[in-house]
């Protein structure tokens, strides 16, 4: 490896690194504004100047490639003077409004001016004043503070794939704006707030809410989709004030989707704080004793096999296991967690996870989407596909039309016949899959909902096994799960008797065989209520509570500990950042109360549940890591082919779960999105 000398210390660096990266290797901190690891290099803030031997002038270390034998100094008076000069220019037009600026306390300019700022200004002219720009309901702008680092412009163009932000004008009059001040049409738009090194782009919903040093920070994971983005939950007292991304290069890199970030105001609205009981066709406030007595009475009135349970999209594994134990005690096994009738074969783990892993997308050389819109179903995963597309020009094909995915792809067909052709080696795609070194096939839930869903999944798997494409090193078979709870619950074997009939629960529900329906945080189950007695246990007064006869208030994902498995099968821990509201309890505590009331002493505690969960996850390696690879069993399953049209079920992106439906910010985003769809304009 080549060597570079930094402040007299010789270190080795990898070829292709810049001087700034080499300095970081040597643990020398270089101040910067425009440089960002995940973005292209702009080199326009000049803050990262360092001294290079034999160069008469200081060099911009972010843009200078490191080379063998370079001698870099970062602590000389020349460097100090240069940086002070740059800082003076940056501050010449920067307003002195730190006391009213939301970035205060986490502002790069504020921090660095502590070291390189001058306490007086030599700038006697008027400061530049720039009008505020509209950038949608999430981003508050104060463009006078902008230092033109163009991080936001680069993010929008490179990562988000919506080139809508740009710098107009020139020189002193340069301004950052979206095209004609429209809102940004991206699911990742709010990441520009984190990227902005100053207070030019700040969070609109969080404006003037709190200062960063007042907040308690809890590292947790997101449950809005199945990607399991790593987040940091910031709380003030018990209120969740904001959610920020946490760096995890295996999952979400440094970004999170707007839904992850801004659903948090939904945690405070529409909350269920006490138990409710339906009396005279109206839900009325009650208390735990009354509600649970009624529930047990009802349980005793009906046969065990007439009781059914449905587990919602944001339930953690411990609570689901507690629920299963409760149902074992009731002697019912009518449990389900799918919201739609999509085919899943849970006999082995590779059948329901994203086997290639999110990181693996970057190594792929061929991507085929089958009936999925990753942009809405898993925004962060879509960003990774875009990264592969931009950096390696990976060819992307789709069966079914997902609409704008922020990258170019080719729609092959929208019929299931195409899949049959692929399997029979009659399609042009078969060859491409077989000749690719690391192909990726992503199967969406929409396609598994089809009548031929079983055929599609089993035959594709079979096709890959027969052609030796599934190996220890690479597995191209991927299922794109939409809900955070799904993979974990499949591992806990919640659905009984997999092989016989996949949709027993749904069939019995349609045939009105259930008399008591227990919804555990389940708001998206589509069913017509007749005479069923519905118990809803959840956090929000949403669709589930609407049809319920008893409502039991429980905690949200920020208010309890719990394990979630993301779509790759990575087990991650969600941490408690706040407390359940009012009389609400964690789900497992509610089950304990029910069990006690029933006069049994099979209560559990959280540690037991977690231990049991961890023991029952197949192929489990360790927390936050991918599951171990397992040999795939080659078992042929009979399935029928039906020629159908593949339509990708459109997701109401900002309204997918009870938390986002309660969020005011999400509603605003949704309204704008709908307006754009309706008349093609915005703002």
């Amino acid at each position: 490896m080549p060597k570079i000398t930094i402040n007299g210390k010789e270190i080795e660096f990898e070829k292709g690194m810049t001087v700034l990266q080499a300095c970081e290797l040597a643990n020398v901190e270089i101040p910067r504004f425009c440089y960002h690891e995940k973005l292209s290099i702009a080199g326009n803030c000049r803050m990262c100047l360092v001294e290079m031997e034999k160069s008469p002038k200081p060099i911009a270390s972010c843009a200078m490639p490191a080379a063998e034998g370079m001698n870099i100094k970062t602590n000389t008076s020349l460097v100090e003077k240069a940086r002070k000069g740059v800082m003076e220019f940056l501050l010449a037009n920067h307003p002195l409004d730190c006391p009213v600026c939301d970035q205060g306390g986490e502002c790069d300019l504020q921090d660095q001016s502590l070291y390189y700022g001058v306490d007086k200004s030599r700038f006697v002219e008027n400061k530049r004043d720039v009008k505020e720009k509209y950038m949608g309901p999430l981003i508050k702008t104060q463009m006078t503070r902008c230092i033109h680092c163009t991080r936001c412009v680069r993010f929008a163009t490179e990562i988000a794939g919506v080139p809508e932000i740009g710098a107009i004008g020139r020189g002193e009059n340069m301004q950052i704006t979206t095209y004609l001040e429209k809102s940004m049409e991206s699911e990742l738009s709010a990441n520009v707030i984190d990227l902005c090194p100053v207070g030019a782009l700040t969070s609109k919903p969080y404006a003037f809410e709190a200062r960063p040093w007042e907040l308690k920070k809890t590292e947790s994971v997101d449950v809005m989709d199945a990607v399991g983005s790593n987040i940091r939950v910031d709380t003030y007292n018990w209120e969740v004030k904001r959610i920020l991304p946490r760096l995890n290069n295996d999952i979400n890199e440094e970004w999170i989707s707007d839904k992850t970030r801004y659903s948090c105001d939904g945690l405070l609205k529409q909350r269920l704080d006490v138990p409710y009981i339906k009396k005279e066709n109206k839900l009325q406030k009650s208390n735990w004793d009354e509600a649970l007595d009624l529930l047990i009475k009802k349980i005793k009135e009906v046969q065990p096999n007439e009781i059914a349970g449905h587990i919602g999209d944001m339930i953690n594994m411990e609570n689901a296991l507690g629920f299963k134990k409760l149902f074992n005690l009731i002697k019912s096994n009518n449990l389900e967690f799918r919201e739609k009738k999509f085919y899943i074969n849970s006999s082995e783990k590779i059948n329901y996870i994203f086997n290639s892993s999110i990181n693996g997308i970057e190594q792929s050389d061929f991507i085929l989407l089958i009936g999925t819109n990753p942009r809405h179903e898993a925004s962060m995963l879509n960003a990774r596909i875009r990264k592969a597309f931009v950096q390696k020009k990976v060819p992307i094909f789709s069966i079914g039309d997902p609409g704008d995915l922020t990258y170019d792809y080719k729609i092959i067909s929208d019929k299931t016949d195409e899949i049959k052709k692929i399997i029979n080696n009659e399609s042009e795609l078969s060859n491409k899959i077989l000749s690719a070194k690391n192909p990726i096939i992503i199967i969406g839930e929409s396609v598994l909902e089809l009548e031929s869903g079983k055929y599609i999944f089993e035959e594709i798997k079979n096709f890959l096994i027969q052609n030796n494409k599934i190996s220890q090193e690479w597995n191209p078979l991927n299922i794109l799960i939409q809900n955070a709870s799904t993979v974990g619950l499949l591992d806990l074997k919640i659905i009984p008797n997999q092989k016989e009939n996949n949709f027993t629960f749904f069939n019995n529900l349609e045939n009105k065989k259930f008399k008591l329906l227990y919804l555990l945080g389940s708001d998206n189950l589509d069913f017509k209520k007749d005479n069923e007695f519905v118990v809803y246990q959840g956090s929000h007064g949403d669709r589930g509570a609407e049809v319920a006869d008893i409502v039991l208030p429980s905690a949200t994902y920020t208010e309890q500990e719990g394990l979630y498995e993301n779509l790759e099968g990575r087990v991650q821990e969600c941490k408690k950042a706040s407390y359940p509201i009012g009389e609400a309890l964690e789900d497992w505590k509610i089950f304990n109360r029910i069990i006690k009331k029933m006069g049994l002493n099979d209560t559990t505690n959280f540690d037991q549940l977690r231990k049991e969960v961890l023991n029952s996850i197949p192929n489990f390696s360790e927390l936050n890591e991918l599951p171990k690879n397992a040999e795939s069993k080659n078992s042929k399953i009979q399935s029928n082919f039906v020629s159908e049209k593949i339509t990708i079920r459109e997701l109401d992106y900002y309204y997918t779960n009870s938390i986002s439906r309660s969020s005011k910010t999400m509603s605003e985003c949704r309204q704008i999105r709908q307006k754009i769809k309706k008349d093609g304009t915005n703002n």
Partner: protein
Amino acid sequence: MSLKKVHEDQPKDFKFNSENLKKVEEIFKRYPEKNKKSAVMPLLYLAQRQNDNWIPLAAMKYIANYLSIPYISVYEVATFYTMYNLAPVGKYFIQVCTTTPCLIRGADKIVKLCKDKISPNENEISKQGSCSWMEVECLGACVSAPMVQINDDYYEDLDEKNTKDILESLIKDKPLKPGSYRGRKNTAPEKKLNTNGENHA
């Protein structure tokens, strides 16, 4: 020079006419296929020519679609360069050079005349006739300072009197001829042609 603003009244549609479409073909030949987007500047110029010396938003969108680049990229270029007009200008568009050589030779007097005769502010269409004026940076004719550019023509070696005449002629829609107003041929010396160093100091 403050940030250029787009005009409030925007035409709905813009399309290159057949003559310009041929020119576009010619322009595209100058760039490799993969760098087609580099044609954005000549195309903007063409659009400005076709649309009475200013570029409407519709034209920017049209060009963006034509080159398959985002709208904002065209918008950035159009706002960056001062010679693209984003609002209507007069039939006679007077650009007064006010960079140092012209200023020393009295460009400020020309500016004052423009304010009196045409409009008190830059980029305002005059009440009488159809003229507008603006201050610009060096137009590269320092040797015949002070000078103005009216549409495509340079009017050079001006003083207060003949500038007044020129402006009045524009208001009457009978423009005087361009060139030097001290009788010079191009930028040749004024009095006597000195060849090969004869009579040189």
